[in-house]
């Protein structure tokens, strides 16, 4: 790449910056080229060791955007920054808290149902003790059946809870890298 090509590419990648700022930046690279040439290097050699103009522009632009938020504290920029922060918060609220509450509900309901089913024969017996006349064999057998299925539910819930916990932790980790990844600068 020649000096001209390098500067042209850099200039066009920086078109979001003001004219003065761009001139200032290009000036630095022009100076670099001219000193390099004085030392007997070729334009191609100098351009090659400078690296890609696009990469340099990316770095300068990232700097520029950060600075814009930091220095020019006008209403629009503040609102934008606040909105971004709230947005991130809402995002996590919905994306993490929502499923979390849902899963806790499911797990709790499963355990509650299992335990209640297991307790039914006991309740039938208690009721029989209090009102002997209300005792029916149908109730007893039905409650025993419920007790059996309750045991299966509890066993199932034991594994389900383990899997759900594991799965949710993985999801949280994924979410963390997602959020962090979005904030990475390059």
């Amino acid at each position: 790449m020649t000096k001209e090509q390098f500067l042209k590419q850099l200039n066009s990648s920086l078109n979001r910056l003001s004219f003065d700022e761009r001139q200032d930046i290009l000036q630095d690279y022009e100076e670099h080229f001219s000193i390099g040439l004085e030392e007997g290097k070729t334009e191609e050699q100098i351009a090659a060791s400078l690296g890609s103009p696009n990469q340099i522009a990316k770095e300068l632009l990232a700097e520029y955007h950060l600075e814009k938020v930091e220095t020019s504290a006008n209403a629009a920029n503040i609102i934008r920054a606040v909105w971004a922060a709230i947005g991130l918060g809402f995002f996590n609220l919905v994306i993490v808290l929502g499923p979390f509450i849902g899963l806790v509900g499911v797990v709790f309901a499963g355990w509650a149902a299992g335990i209640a089913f297991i307790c039914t024969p006991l309740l039938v017996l208690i009721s029989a003790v209090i009102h002997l006349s209300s005792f029916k064999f149908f109730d007893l057998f039905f409650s025993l059946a419920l007790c059996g299925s309750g045991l299966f539910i509890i066993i199932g819930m034991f594994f389900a809870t383990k899997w759900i916990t594991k799965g949710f932790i993985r999801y949280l980790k994924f979410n963390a890298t997602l959020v962090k990844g979005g904030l990475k600068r390059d």
Partner: protein
Amino acid sequence: MNVQFKKGVLELCVLVLLDKKDRYGYELVQKISNQIEISEGTVYPLLRRLTKEEYFTTYLQESSEGPSRKYYKLTDKGREYLHELVEEWKQFSNGVNQLIKEGVNID
């Protein structure tokens, strides 16, 4: 080497080089790239940033061989920052060296 890591180190290198005397951009770039493999072009954005953060001031000086050169001069704020970074670097590199010493068996 990791890009972010290199950037941080590059900042330290530039500050150290300016501690004793003012230098122009090309000189800084050459001094660093003689020791560390870098994309030379990335030094200029760094210089701009550090200038904006008031760690450097710049001035133009005529050179005998050609167009005038932009010199960078460390400010008091910059010097303070340099001392902080050097201290951090020492602790960091001591820590890493210690771990290497404990972890690697060199025959």
